[in-house]
Every structure is written in structure tokens, then in C-alpha cells.
């Protein structure tokens, strides 16, 4: 997993509440065997005018000119500004995979669905929670000033606007530690490899029939 320390990037505003994971990545793409490559199908139904099929080349598909991510000024955005209950619905891990593959490293919203929130951390995306009022203000500023960038600093837990205004956010210590150091759960568990090995050795002694049979 890629580290997340601080990130200064262009913001794209997705002004809708209750965006569910089905909208983030529609179900026909779940038959894929990959964790990557979902970027072109992120928000597929909103983004294109035709119906997307798995494995299709998206470069020639008709774009929906009204969809925010299709506007020239938001190209290259790496921070997604969103509304409440973002990522609700099915537990598919394909949703954060698609956001990441598209290029988003951070989402800012007033609230998230639980599973999606967890899944973000597992995939190196920082989901920032800010007060409704502040999110409103950020939406307005993004709309009025082209090229609007935010600086997200995880160590100090702050979001800084171009005018120098700074907002702080909460994040669980353990998750912060993992993101800052680019540790995925696996990396972290492997830090306990010795404990696992000694547990395993004991288990082999007490229940030897559980080992070496399926081979």
C-alpha cells in the first residue's frame, strides 16, 4: 500500500448525497479478476452515455458532458469532495479500487458508510470527515475558483485551503499509523511473524493432524 503523508492536489466536487457503491462501480464489472483497471469504469453510468460492458475499451465511448469528472477543469483531480453517507450499499471492495485506479487518494465528506470507510484505509485512500458547514464552504470555493487545490496533511490531521485557512479532522490512531507508514494490515500482521511462528509451532505439537495433510 502506498503511504499517505501529505497530499496537495486538485479537488473535484461530487455534489450528491448517498452515493452508493453500485454507482461508484456498477455490478457488471465485478466479474473481473483484477484489483486494478476499474478506473475507466468509475461512476460508469453517470460518466458515459452508453451502457458499459466489462473488458470494453472506454476511450471511444460517448462521454456525458454534464458529469463533473468530465469537465476539463477537473482533469487530474486527486481529491474527491463528496456529500453525506458516501459509499453506502454493497460491501464491494471494487469501489475503493476504482477510486484509487482513477487517481483519487483522498475523499472529503461529512460522513461515510462503515464498510466503505474501512475499505478505503485497506487500500491507501484517506477518507476525511469534516463538518457539514465546512464541506459546504469547500464546495463553494471549489466551484468559484478554477484550479482549486487543497493540502491534506495526515500527520497534523489538517486540511488547508489556498487562502491558508486550516481545518482539523479526526482519525483513528491505528489507522493513521498504517497510512502514514504505508503499512497494510498484512504488513502489520507480518510484524508479528514471530508470534505467529511460535503459535504455529505449539499448535503443531498439540494438534499435529492439522499440518502437512493437504498437499
Amino acid at each position, binding site marked *: 500500500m502506498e503511504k499517505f503523508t501529505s497530499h496537495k492536489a486538485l479537488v473535484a466536487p461530487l455534489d450528491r448525497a448517498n452515493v452508493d457503491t453500485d454507482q461508484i462501480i456498477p455490478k457488471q464489472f465485478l466479474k473481473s479478476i483484477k*484489483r486494478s483497471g476499474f478506473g475507466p469504469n468509475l461512476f460508469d453510468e453517470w460518466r458515459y452515455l452508453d451502457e458499459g460492458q466489462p473488458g470494453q475499451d472506454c476511450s471511444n465511448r460517448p462521454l456525458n458532458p454534464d458529469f463533473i469528472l468530465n469537465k476539463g477543469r477537473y482533469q487530474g483531480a486527486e481529491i474527491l469532495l463528496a456529500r453525506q453517507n458516501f459509499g453506502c450499499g454493497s460491501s464491494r471492495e471494487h469501489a475503493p479500487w476504482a477510486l484509487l485506479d482513477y487517481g483519487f487518494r483522498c475523499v472529503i465528506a461529512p460522513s461515510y458508510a462503515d464498510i466503505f470507510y474501512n475499505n478505503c484505509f485497506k*487500500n491507501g485512500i484517506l477518507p476525511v470527515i469534516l463538518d457539514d458547514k465546512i464541506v459546504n464552504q469547500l464546495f463553494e470555493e471549489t466551484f468559484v475558483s478554477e484550479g482549486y487545490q487543497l493540502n491534506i496533511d495526515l500527520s497534523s490531521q489538517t486540511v488547508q485551503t489556498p487562502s491558508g485557512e486550516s481545518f482539523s479532522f479526526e482519525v483513528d490512531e491505528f489507522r493513521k499509523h498504517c497510512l502514514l507508514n504505508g503499512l497494510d494490515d498484512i504488513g502489520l500482521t507480518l510484524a*508479528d511473524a514471530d508470534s*505467529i511462528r511460535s503459535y504455529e509451532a505449539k499448535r503443531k505439537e498439540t494438534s499435529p493432524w492439522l499440518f502437512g495433510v*493437504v498437499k
Partner: protein
Amino acid sequence: MKPRTLYDKLWDDHVVKQREDGTALIYIDRQLLHEVTSPQAFEGLSLAGRAPWRLDANLATPDHNVPTENQEAGVEGILDPVSRIQVETLDANCDKFGIVEFKMGDSRQGIVHVIGPEQGATLPGMTIVCGDSHTATHGAFATLAHGIGTSEVEHVLATQCLIQRKMKNMRVEVNGDLPFGVTAKDIILAIIGEIGTAGGTGYAIEFAGSAIEALSMEGRMTVCNMAIEGGARSGLVAFDDTTLEYLKDRPYGPKAEQWDQAVSQWRDLKSDEGAFFDRVVKLNAADIKPQVTWGTSPEMVVAVDAQIPRQEEEADPIKREAIERAYQYMGYKEGLAITDIKLDRVFIGSCTNSRIEDLRAAAEVAKGNQVASSIKQAMVVPGSGLVKQQAEEEGLDEIFTQAGFQWREPGCSMCLAMNADKLGDGEHCASTSNRNFEGRQGQGGRTHLVSPAMAAAAAIAGHFVDVRDFVRQQS
């Protein structure tokens, strides 16, 4: 020592490290893998340059996408190219990493939750995981078994552990003798009807009581399988002589002195007298009748002799809305009797009810009868190649085909319709599977969950009948 529940014991036995934040590192003894939820896990492993922690802890088989006809053709026989790639990917990953896989064409191939116990890869006292919510099935063997997501599949591959928080304890006690014609499937459907689909959320459920003790291992697996439909990630049954008999001489089970050593450990796999349960639910077996789900959630279930609940009878507005939606989706009129529901298809199979005992129960009803002419398709899909072989040795396949049922090859099949076996729009199906969600068996399809005997009787009558009357009339 404080008396402990079976779940407490299994948990304590597997704690590698307790962490300060309340989570614990839990050791996993066995992981079962299939083609749908594993490809990204293997990819993640490769990308990180990691190898599986312990190869012999894993066992893989394709099941969700496999066709139920022409399996001799192997992977080449899968017509849907996207499905084929998923199965090919599993084969390639297992070959690459050195994980044992029962490939298509291997007689041991089948639904993951059928082959684990069949091979003795599921043993008492284990922790078992799989990227599939019906992993709860294995709890019938006094194992701590539950479904996990794709990131966790990778986590277990790489570390043989999971980061978990302990669940609460629930005991569901079913006492008394099960009436004639009533089966394990009816018990679990009745339990879900009682506690609801979220009733077990946050709990590990231990199923106990004399009616559970009297069940075969097949029956106990059926009950644990649907723990998840009651909201619980894990279902459990204590170890006893029934468990022991089932496990003797299984290929991956302990042999010789190890067997004796194992059995003496397994004897302790039960809740201690006086152990604390956060919640206890009691049912009387004598009150359970054959069950039929009428709606689009497993908790929408009634006895076969009942009518579909009337919408205005539900006081809770959220539930009433769900009932209204189900009425609409299922195309009902008010006050319809369950026995008046006309059926289009019948599916006997899935990890809930595709074991030999299930097929025997269905064959007993089918024997000497004919599937009603109004039924478009009645199919029997054994849970594994070995179940299929045994059924054929017993002549069950002939009973089925003579009665007009299709005798298919093993896999998940119409349980979730990822292969070619599907319901058409608006069709009603009597199914021995575990989920009756909208579109589960095909877009617009209408599923009714029942026991194998009830499904077979419905196939013959063309509509639901009380299997108890049916059998009485026949004899």
C-alpha cells in the same frame, strides 16, 4: 476456571496475540478458496512479492461458475468467456503458488462447503475461513468458521491470521422430537422466522438441544449453513459421537494414534455447564411444520399450511413496506395460500441441501412419481462429484430421471445463477438453496426456499403441497 461456551473455547485456542485496541490476531487453520473472491487476493499477493504463509492450510475448487452439464469438457466447456477466465485464473493461481485444487473433471470437485467436510479438510476445533458467507456451514463440526472479504482472503494467504474482534454468544436451543416429514431445513427456516435476518448480527450462534443432537451431520450442516441468513457470521454445533462417526476415515482426517489423540481433544468441544450466553432462544421441535418462504428475504417464511401474511397485519411501517415490495415483486394477491402458489421450476442443490442425505430424501418422494407437466424444469444438482457417485451407486439418479428430473453435475448452479442455470423473468421456483433475494436465481425470478422433500413433492404436484400429506397418501 470460569465455564466457557464452545465459541469461547475456539476463540481462546486461536489467539496469537491480544492487542490493546480490543482486536486480536487469530490463527486460521484452514482456508477454502474458489474462483470468484480469490483472484484479486492472489494478485495482491503477487504485487507485494509475498508467498502464501502455509500452503497446506489451503484447499481450492471452482464452483460458482462451473456449468452443470458436460463437465468432462473441463474449463473449455464453459461457454461464457468471463466465467471461463475466472475458473482459468483460479487454476493458474493454484498451480503457480502450489495450492491443492480440485479442478473441473476431478471427482472430488464440488461446492467448497460440501467438499471440505467430505475430505476431512474440515475438522473439529479448527478455525476455517473462505471468501464466501456460507462458510458458517463448517461450524457443524464444532469449528469456528466464517466468511471473509477479498482483502482478508489475501491477509490469510499471507499471514495465516486475521485481525478480529470477539463476537457475543447466542444459544439457539431446539428441544423435543422433530415431527414426521420435518427436516433440518425446516428447523433453520423456523429459527430465522423467529429471530429475523438481523437477529444474530454480532453473535456466534451455537445450535443445541435434543432436536439438534438428533440430526445427522448433513442436517447440522444445513442448519449452520443458514446462520448467516439469521445475521450471524458463525454457527456452531458441539462435538459428539455423530461428528466422530462422520469423520472416521476421511482422506485428510487424522489416522491411527493421531486419531485417538484428536478425539480426546475434540471431546472438550462443547459449552461448559453454566457457561454464559448473551442471548438464548428456545424452540420446540414438535411445533415446527414444513416451511416455505413466500417473500424476498429468508425471514419471510411461514408453514406450508399457512397463507401469505396480509400487508395490513404488519404494524411496523418499515416491515410493512418490505412486505408490500415483496408482494409486488412476487406478483401476489392478498390472502393467497402457500399451496396455491404455482411453480415453474424446481431446484434441488446448493451448499445448503445437496448432500447425499438430501438427495435420498428427495428421491424417496420422487420414486415412482412424475414431475407435473406444468413444471418447465426440475433439476437435481449434487454438491460434489463424490456425492454424485454415491447417489448413482444407490440408483438415485435413475429414480430422478425416471420421474422427469434432470440429473446434473456438481456446482453452485441455480443457487445464484452465475452459470447457465437461471430462472426466467417472473418464474416461481421451489429451491433448496438459502437466499430468496430479488433476482438471486435470475433477473425477475421468484424463489421459495424449502427442504429437499418439499421441493420434490412440489415438483410432482406442480404447486406446494404438505409433504406430510403427500407421503401419507402414497403409503
